[in-house]
């Protein structure tokens, strides 16, 4: 026969696990990376990767961006709708620049790569707008 204390302990553990999991699943933390390549003054490739964080990120929110939101909690759709504004915001956060140029027999060839390394962003979805801020 089980004691009352043992049962309450079990239910407490179960509840805490459920609460923790629900919090983790609803955590609005996203990993975002961005990269684009320019070759000979013409854009060659652009990549923006967005994925939900599977582990909790550390850090405090920094400079935030507020976007109008009509897509629930879909960050990809939100960014796609406001791509220009979001890209400008990413530029302001800071990009890593790598430039290589070679001139062979007076013929020039250049490659510039701009990269935002994978950064964790905290996203708060509200009714009509969403707040995006990097965690550092």
């Amino acid at each position, binding site marked *: 026969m089980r004691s009352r204390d043992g049962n309450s302990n079990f239910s407490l553990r179960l509840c805490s696990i459920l609460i923790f999991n629900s919090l983790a699943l609803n955590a609005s933390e996203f990993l975002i990376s961005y990269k684009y390549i*320019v070759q000979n*003054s*013409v*854009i060659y490739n652009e990549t923006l990767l967005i994925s939900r964080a599977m582990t909790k990120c550390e850090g405090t929110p920094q400079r935030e961006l507020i976007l109008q939101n009509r897509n629930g909690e879909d960050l990809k759709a939100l960014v796609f709708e406001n791509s220009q504004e979001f890209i400008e915001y990413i530029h302001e956060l800071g990009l*890593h*620049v790598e430039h*290589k*140029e070679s*001139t062979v*027999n007076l013929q020039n060839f250049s490659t510039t790569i701009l990269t935002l390394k994978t950064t964790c962003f905290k996203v708060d979805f509200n009714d009509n707008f969403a707040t995006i801020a990097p965690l550092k």
Partner: protein
Amino acid sequence: MKYSILFALLLSISSLFADEIIKPADTTVTQQTYAEMLAQAQAQAAQIQAEKDERLASEAATAAQKEEEVLKKNSSIHLSVVGQGVAPMNTISPAQAYALAKRAAIADAYRAIAEKVKGVRIDGEDTIKNMMVQRSTIRTYVQAMVRNANVVETTFKEGLCEVEMEIVISHSDFARY
């Protein structure tokens, strides 16, 4: 009379010998003077050259001091650059062409900022065979992290996009605690 003539002859001979003896003495004196003059001239030339070198060095140092902006404590430097970009050939609309050209121009401006702030690594290589240049190669490389750069002005004319960007660099950005 005979003795007097003989005496006069002896005197003349002795005077001749005396001239021969003195003459070499005169030449040595003149040789010494030339050497001294040469040495003096060389010394003067060296002194002038040294003064000229010193003056040039001080002028170069002053010019470098004037040109090179040093980022002092509690101060900032304002940098402005212009980047250029071209739209790709296979765009579906002028708006897309503009957007892509602007993206390329921004990348070029970032490159320019990086070059100004961090400098450029340059490698050069020339291959010469039978007194003829076979291959001439110049490679440049720059790598940096650029934050807080702002677009000031954008112009798009005849397929070329120009973006003017500025950045303010303060001492605290580089200070290590």
